[in-house]
């Protein structure tokens, strides 16, 4: 690795987007756009939605759109943990409420006391069925 380049990794939870040596990176940090050259001091910051520009060489630049995420800088490596989903705290709250509501609606139709005995018998029945199937198969 030469002194003039650093490793850039752009990853999202669902896939790897980019990984190569670059000369410089521009990223949309929450406090304003930052430009990063090699030997930058360690930094951790949040990113907002925007373009990430990676200068691979003097003539080649790649642009990625990200919808937010986290930027981690080490002297010789830059990592962008990109979000795939659009993250607003209101939106997250909505999602949480929705899944809680789904659970609540489902629960209303059942008794609230947890019946472990019932659970155990149900599982035992399933296990017995599986054993029986195995036995029947062995016989043939």
């Amino acid at each position, binding site marked *: 690795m030469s002194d003039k380049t650093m490793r850039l*990794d752009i*990853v*999202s*939870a*669902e*896939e*790897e987007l980019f*990984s190569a040596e670059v000369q410089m990176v521009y990223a949309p*940090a*929450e*406090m304003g756009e930052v430009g990063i050259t090699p030997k930058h*001091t*360690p*930094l*951790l*910051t*949040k990113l907002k939605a925007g373009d990430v520009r990676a200068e691979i060489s003097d003539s080649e630049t790649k642009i990625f759109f990200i919808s937010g995420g*986290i930027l*981690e800088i*080490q002297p010789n490596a830059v*990592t962008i*943990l990109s*979000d*795939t*989903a659009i993250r607003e705290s209101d939106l*997250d*709250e*909505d*999602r*949480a*409420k*929705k*899944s*809680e509501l*789904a*659970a609540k609606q*489902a*629960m209303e*139709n*059942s*008794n*609230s*006391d*947890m*019946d*472990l005995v*019932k*659970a*155990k018998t*149900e*599982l035992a029945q*399933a*296990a017995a069925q*599986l054993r029986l199937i195995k036995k029947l*198969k062995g016989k*043939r």
Partner: protein
Amino acid sequence: MAGSQEIRTQIKSIQNTQKITKAMEMVAASKMRKAVGQMEKARPYANKISYVMSHLANAHAEYNSVYFEVREVKKRAYIVVSSDRGLCGGLNNNLFKKVIESTLENKKNEIDTSYSVFGNKAAGFFQRIGGEVISQSTQVGDQPKIEDLLGTIKSTIDKFISKDVDEVYVAYNKFFNTVSQIPTIDKILPISSNDEAIDKEYSHYWDYLYEPDAKEVLESLFVRFIESLTYRAVVENIASEQASRMVAMKSSSDNASDLIDELQIIYNKNRQAAITQEISEIISGASAL
């Protein structure tokens, strides 16, 4: 003879069932390959984020996060990941059994238990047994987006932050290979600071600069870390589901073949008996003349 026709219909109907199970087997095989691919694709993010987390462990971050807070355990929450559809062998039942065993263990130690569930099967099961379900997401499909999981994850994390629960686990089927999927329960909260991860290279004192401030950046990092762990569990469970379905469907196709063979023999015997009887009737008729 009357039996022959019946046996023939039965063979036909088993053949039709076998066609279905064979098709399901092949569909499951291709879906499994896709799910394994998705698992591979998720790996770089998981690696990177744990790499950043281990840096943080080295960095002696000045901010003590609630996500690391070890409390006396009064209540545990389990995020139970199951499949939406059945016909996948004992996959879900094995997992539920493991969860119920831990629940009983908790009960012995006077610890309450609540659940967050992914997938129809877990939703149905915990509803039937009347467990306390914090939140649920069903029908996330074969290729879930992380977006679909956020709601359930957040409401579980919120319970941890508000100190309603003191530990959070994720229960899923770990995918080893096509024939082996192991029900697994992993602890995700509080985040255990892994001492082994401390890298000698960075062991001198340093810390990141944080923008805008440590608390905000770190919190969103920790939330993403937990999300990535859960996402991984969900994707692995899908791979396990498809693998398990493939094996189950293969064995039912084999069973159908065995049944058909058996019936075919009975059918042939039946047919031969009928012919023999007819011949002996003709001969005895002829000799009577």
